[in-house]
């Protein structure tokens, strides 16, 4: 028996020993954020380009902070990760990233060929303590934050503002993305709209605003919203909107497009707008953490995804828009059913009047009122704490203390009764009587 056990233990150990780590590429990406067939194709492509074998281990996450803390702790050795803009900022400041060189040998450099000028500009603005984000990351997907709504059930006059999330008409039909930073910025923009319009502050300044006064203002606003909310969603919002269990969803443009496409065939009509007061624009980009064990395959992977055909496939499957520009993509996204909009900021001078889905690629006028969010550094816990208070359970101090005390009291009562009956039984046995027990 003992031998069998040791044998099994040995087997387990053997099974657990992964072979050569350099043959693996550990990818850490958002859930549902890639065309999965590309994963296998990359392994093939990598072999063709370099003659080396690689096997992808693909892991997903759905919250930025979870992913960040894993990278910070250093226990994980992911090779290539897809964080959001402000996380990239933070990673740069904390010196967690390797620069992405463009040395691909004979393979063409799709990264620099196609990245849109707008993306490049925004990445320049990422404040990475002297390091330029363009050297350390490559844009993957981007979008805006806004309101997804149900055309049938939401009145037209209510559209256009962030304040729709506080409209009691739609109580219990409102879903809010469980993303503290995005929601905070949206609400703050709404609250400060007068000052923005009068030019007293800029949108960019607001994105850095972590003052206690602002936090309190947003918190109070959100407390009013809380009673109307049907759910804080990380991912299930689009499904709820399609099923018409929700009529309003504070979400991202990519989720909106996905929802709109899925809802159409079943007769549900959804729309999306970026509020007039202004909004945030966000980017996800690929980075190579400094603990990566296979940086070479990592940068080839990034390059692979920048190939226009692959980028288009990702767009198709995921619903978001890629950071890659270029003619091939511009051709693919045009569709006469949309009105003409100005996309020169993304595709260059020829794209001043192209028929493209405005939810996917916002018109210049929308971009003008959007700004990228920034990392708050050491002020971040204030945001998380505020969000916790907003979402949290609101029993007052008194109720809390009463419940805990009642529970402890119950336990003490039980303990006393037990010790009394035990001593009684003990006394009975001493007298020679058998205790009645079942």
């Amino acid at each position, binding site marked *: 028996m003992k031998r069998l056990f040791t044998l*099994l233990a040995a087997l387990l150990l053997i099974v657990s020993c992964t072979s050569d780590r350099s043959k693996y590429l550990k990818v850490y990406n958002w859930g549902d954020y890639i065309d999965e067939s590309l994963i296998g194709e990359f392994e093939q492509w990598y072999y063709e380009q370099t003659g080396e074998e690689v096997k992808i281990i693909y892991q997903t996450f759905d919250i930025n902070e979870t992913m960040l803390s894993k990278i910070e702790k250093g*226990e994980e050795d*992911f090779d290539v990760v897809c964080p959001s803009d402000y996380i990239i900022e933070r990673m740069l400041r904390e010196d967690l990233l390797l620069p992405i060189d463009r040395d691909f040998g004979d393979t063409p450099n799709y990264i620099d060929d196609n990245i849109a000028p707008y993306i490049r500009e925004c990445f320049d603005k990422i404040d990475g303590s002297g390091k330029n984000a363009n050297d350390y990351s490559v844009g993957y997907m981007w979008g805006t934050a806004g309101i997804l709504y149900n055309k049938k059930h939401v009145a037209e006059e209510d559209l256009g503002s962030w304040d729709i999330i506080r409209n009691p008409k739609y109580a219990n039909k409102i879903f809010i993305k469980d993303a503290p930073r995005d929601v905070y910025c949206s609400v703050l923009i709404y609250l400060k709209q007068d000052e923005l319009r009068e030019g007293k502050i800029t949108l960019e300044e607001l994105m850095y605003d972590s003052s206690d006064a602002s936090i309190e203002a947003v918190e109070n606003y959100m407390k009013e919203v809380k009673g109307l909310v049907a759910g804080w969603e990380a991912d*299930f919002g689009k499904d709820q909107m399609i099923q018409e269990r929700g009529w309003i969803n504070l979400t991202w443009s990519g989720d909106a497009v996905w929802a709109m496409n899925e809802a159409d065939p079943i007769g549900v009509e959804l729309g999306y707008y970026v509020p007039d007061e202004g909004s945030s624009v966000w980017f996800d980009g690929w980075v190579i953490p400094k603990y990566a064990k296979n940086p070479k395959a990592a940068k080839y992977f990034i390059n692979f995804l920048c190939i226009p055909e692959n980028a288009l496939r990702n767009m198709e499957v995921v619903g978001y828009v890629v950071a890659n520009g270029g003619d091939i993509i511009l051709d693919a996204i045009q569709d006469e059913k949309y009105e003409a909009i100005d996309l020169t900021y993304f595709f260059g001078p020829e794209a001043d009047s192209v028929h493209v889905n405005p939810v996917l690629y916002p018109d210049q006028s929308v971009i003008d009122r959007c700004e990228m969010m920034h990392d708050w550094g050491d002020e971040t816990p204030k945001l998380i704490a505020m969000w916790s208070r907003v979402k949290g359970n609101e029993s007052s101090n008194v109720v809390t203390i009463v419940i805990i005390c009642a529970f402890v009291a119950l336990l003490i009562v039980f303990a006393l009764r037990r010790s009394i009956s035990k001593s009684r039984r003990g006394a009975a046995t001493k007298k020679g009587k058998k205790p009645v027990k079942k």
Partner: protein
Amino acid sequence: MKKFLAKAYIWFLLVILYAPIIFIIIFSFSESKVLGNWTGFSTNLYTNLFSPQAASATSLFRAIYNTLIIALISAFVSMILGAIAAIGIYNLRSRNKNVMLFLNSIPIINPDIITGVALFLLFIFLHVSQGYTTVVLAHITFCTPYVVLSVMPRLTQMNPNLYEAALDLGATPMQALRKVLIPLLRPGMISGFILAFTMSLDDFVVTFFTRGTIGLETLSTYIYADARKGGLTPELRPLMTIIFISILILLVIFNIRKAKSEKQLAK
């Protein structure tokens, strides 16, 4: 009258207990993406489940496969480890015996989130990369106590002289073990195995904390990840139906056999 009330109460509870399950079973036969929207009878969900092309079906099957393998390995190792442990504990002096039994009961009493977090910290501390091995080890940890508790009654009910008698009659300790002890313990070992297997199959929290980041999914973690996106996805409906039917069949078979053996005993 009393009888009627009693029966009504039972049936009322059963209806509530089975309403969601029946609801899902009914809708597993419709292809509608939205639950509650009957779009006509179709077994497409079932065929999709078994078709090898659908990408989601393969990851679901991988998860099921992982779940079964992990459960089989864990239950088997737990059974052996637990049986050996039970024999050893049985033979201990009273004070040591109580200590071992107390330690044994800790994984049973502990809520799974504590077990999960504690084991997670253990693997971090030992710098063991988390994946298949850690999950199996974790499952063995919370399964073995149940095996011990299943085998112990057999030992206490066993006539201690049988083993001595075998030795007196010339058997070596090994032979006595194999021919006397093991057969007597076997029912306990088997029920321990089944119990361990079930606990491992159903586990979610411990697996969730100990599976690391290599993308290992078991059925429970797969459902959890999937559900965060969109509740009970259509592909899970036929799965639930199949699980329900299989368990129903198993339990019915088990009960028929039990009734048969009871009848035989009565004779």
